[in-house]
């Protein structure tokens, strides 16, 4: 094995060591064969590691040291809203009265938890301008699918079974078309115009009696506000379609514009983005959906309501699309979001958006001289540069992203959105200081200069990380997706 390899937990295993402390067995021993038939009694042990408690802590501490989080350093990953994750949220989520509550307990024993659900629904309804909210979806994509299923059920209830098309702009998140497919729709792509906004004429030419919905992110993935939103709403509603809001970018418009007031019929939010539920290395998230009263009849069951002074789970929703998840969504995550909203209040949420947008515009203007900026109007919470100027000099956007690692930064989102060549999508968020932004800008400017003067240093980056660029082709061609004890260590030369 290579001397610099980080051991796998399985490689630390030694027969005879244990890392557990189970409760004392205070009942008589049983003969398992008297309870289970021979065929279902496991013959071969599962090869889980045999390690001590300290081995485990050292192992995972070592792994954590090989990972970059928001608490490690700046993380301007566009479209992901990598803001600070408040620690009070973590404390509240661990209260035994929240963490140790079983979802199937009697309603009377979970009134506090249901009150959180209900009150958060009310807060999100006000923030989005949508009258009804469900917290059941587990993540953004899950919310998209849930809302599309509700839209489909609405059309079907009206006998509109011919509405099989969902319109999606070319700049949309990949989850939009994917969610449309799993909700049983066909996707139609709508073009962007030269300003980076939805091409209204193209939209008009593509709507019709088969239109179920238009999915839209506003501001869009270029960080630009769709100024024609009311006209777009009129076009889609004019043919009987519904308007769907992808709330991934809500951080840009809180207290400035609400989806409900823009004409949207359904909205999903990413509570792990705008509302600080941490990203957790990829999840868990929480993707509530808000809808108009017209669509509310189709909400997933159960619906949490307040009846007099009590909070209840209402299963009597005859037109419901059914359950989208066992129990009531990712409670532990939306509890964190609730804690955050209550920490900020109305003034705080307004300041969040204002500072997020101010930070993004400041960075954009300072970087504009050094990189191509395809769309020059004011941005909202994020902006997209193009690395095409640097590409001509031999350093691609990927190279510059890797070079940023040497400065201790997580790079921006790259190669997205798809309608910008060599895209570099930067979202600073409001929780970063001017000093942090300035330091990052300086690093970007230095990299731009390196590309002109010494491109190799960029092309060969990163130079300081625990590992260099990895061979992704090999990973995909000969997939090794699990550890196998007998397997010879990976040392063969790359072909």
């Amino acid at each position, binding site marked *: 094995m*290579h001397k610099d390899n980080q051991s796998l937990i399985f490689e630390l*295993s030694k027969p005879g060591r244990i*890392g557990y402390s*189970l409760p004392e067995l*205070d009942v008589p021993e049983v003969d*398992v064969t008297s309870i289970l038939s021979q065929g*279902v*009694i496991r013959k071969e042990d*599962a090869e889980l590691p045999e390690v001590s408690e300290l081995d*485990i*802590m050292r192992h*995972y501490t070592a*792994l*954590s040291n*090989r*990972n970059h989080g928001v*608490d*490690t350093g700046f993380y301007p*990953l566009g479209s992901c809203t990598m803001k600070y994750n408040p620690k009070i949220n973590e404390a509240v989520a661990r209260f*035994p009265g*929240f*963490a140790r*509550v079983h979802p*199937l307990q009697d309603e009377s024993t979970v009134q*506090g938890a249901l009150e959180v659900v209900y009150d958060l629904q009310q807060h999100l309804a006000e923030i989005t301008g949508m009258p009804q909210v469900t917290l059941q979806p*587990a*993540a953004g*994509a*899950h919310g998209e*699918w849930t809302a599309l299923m509700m839209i489909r059920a609405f059309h079907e209830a009206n006998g509109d079974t011919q509405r099989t098309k969902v319109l999606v702009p070319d700049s949309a998140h990949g989850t939009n078309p994917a*969610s449309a497919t799993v909700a049983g729709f066909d996707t139609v792509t709508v073009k962007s115009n030269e300003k980076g906004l939805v091409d209204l004429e193209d939209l008009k030419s593509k709507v019709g009696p088969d239109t179920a919905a238009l999915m839209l992110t506003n501001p869009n993935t270029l960080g630009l506000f769709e*100024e024609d*939103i009311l006209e777009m709403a009129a076009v889609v509603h004019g043919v009987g379609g519904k308007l769907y809001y992808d709330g991934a970018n809500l951080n840009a418009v809180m*207290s400035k514009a609400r989806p409900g007031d823009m004409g949207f019929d359904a909205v999903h939010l990413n509570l792990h983005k705008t509302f600080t539920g*941490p*990203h957790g*290395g990829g*999840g868990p998230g929480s993707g509530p959906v808000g809808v108009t009263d017209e669509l509310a009849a189709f909400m997933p069951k159960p619906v949490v309501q307040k009846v007099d002074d009590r909070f209840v789970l209402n299963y009597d929703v005859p037109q419901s699309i*059914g359950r*989208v*998840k066992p129990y009531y969504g990712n*409670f532990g*995550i939306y509890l964190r979001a609730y804690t955050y909203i209550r920490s900020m*209040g109305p003034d705080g949420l307004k*300041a969040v958006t204002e500072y997020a*947008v*101010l930070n993004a515009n400041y960075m954009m*203007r300072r970087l504009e001289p050094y990189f191509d900026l395809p769309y020059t109007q*004011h941005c909202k919470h994020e902006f997209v540069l193009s690395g095409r100027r640097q590409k001509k000099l031999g350093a691609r956007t990927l190279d510059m992203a*890797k070079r940023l690692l040497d400065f201790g930064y*997580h*790079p921006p989102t790259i190669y997205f959105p798809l309608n910008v060549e060599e895209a570099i999508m930067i979202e600073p968020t409001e*929780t970063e200081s001017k000093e942090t932004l300035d330091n990052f800008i300086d690093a970007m400017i230095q990299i731009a200069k390196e590309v002109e003067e010494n491109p190799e240093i960029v092309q060969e980056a990163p130079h300081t*990380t625990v590992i260099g*660029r*990895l061979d992704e082709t090999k990973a995909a061609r000969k*997939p090794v*997706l699990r*550890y196998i004890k007998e397997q010879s260590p*990976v040392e063969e030369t790359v072909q």
Partner: protein
Amino acid sequence: MKHRYLPMTEQDQKDMLETIGVSSIDELFSDIPEKVRFKGEYQIKPAKSETSLLKELGRLAAKNINAQEYASFLGAGVYDHYRPIIVDHVISRSEFYTAYTPYQPEISQGELQAIFEFQTMICELTGMELANSSMYDGGTSLAEAGTLAAGHTRRKKLLVSATVHNESRAVVKSYADGQYIDVVTIPHTNGVTDIDKLKEMIDDETAAVLVQYPNFYGQVEDLQVISDIAHEHGALSIVSANPLALGLLTPPGALGADITVGDAQPFGIAESFGGPHCGYFAVSKKLMRKVPGRLVGETNDDQGRRGYVLTLQAREQHIRRDKATSNICSNQALNALAASVAMTALGKEGIKEIAYQNIAKTAYAKQAFEKAGFEVKFGPAHFNELVVDCKAPIQDVNKRLLDQGIIGGYDLSLVDESLANHALIAVTEQRTKEEIDAYVQELEAIHA
């Protein structure tokens, strides 16, 4: 506006506006049409200080009965198991919980390796060839297994056993509706899937047979027989398995399963009022390129150092868009990490011992209920749940039990009218003999 999460000062603001070349923040929002501009203030609760918010939320939490203060016999898919203290210490490391999806492998090796280890442990327990990095939960994982099978076989019918958790069945139905797939329920007999009925119902339109192991009633299904029937008709065998039980039960992979899914909540993950938990998704190799969600694979860098990357991404929504195998993006990474720590702590010996303890304590409880005259239905193969005829409405029984510091079993009349007065009682390794005896005594007292 001063707030501890917002570092902007008045001077910063002034300097930044000057650089941008505007005179106010409002100007940056001038592209929002007047007609849709929100002019008022959100009518939401005002901000609270850290201290008073902790107090208020502490009061709300205190209104909930919880398994830390009560002895919980409530299972039905979510269990009170041993949670090694170290789990919370590991997942509290903010290098893990404040990170995004590991798209930049050079600075995400920790997360990527942790997922690779998770995938390996799930393979070990389930006996499957590969596993993904996690799904939302056991219910949606089962639903995605169903849609995968429909896509793979190009068939439009799923047979789901009545012994699968009712909420999971409901989720399977919703997902199937999305893709115009029919879902048909196979009835149960004596608490297990009715094999004769399965044979009658399965046909060449069936994409898959979906069962649970141990099933909703705590019984152990005959997976080999069910898998064989599925395969004879060209259908896939899909098993939703409690991974903790697999410490002692033959893994589904050795009994013909093509897809094994489930929830890793029993491994170190709190009940948390139903979520977040941690779905897992494991398959045989032939289905590798159809798996939903993220996969981590091993590779190396140019110096030969071993490393890990997200791989086979051509299945996923951010590459394939409307042709993706699933729309899943965010998963349950942090909870997969929690489960990995718990699985590691248990290790090769502990996983057997914990599974055995569940069987032993459940066997003791069974005997105790029966001795007191309360019939335990089905059997004899109980893992850690018993269907007990309490001879009184469960809601009333459970109220009495609460006074004794006990959270009673699940009221089965909520899902099956024929099981009025029956509770599904979970007896994990966490329950003591004393607590089990107290449960039985209270039932006796009710009938005295």
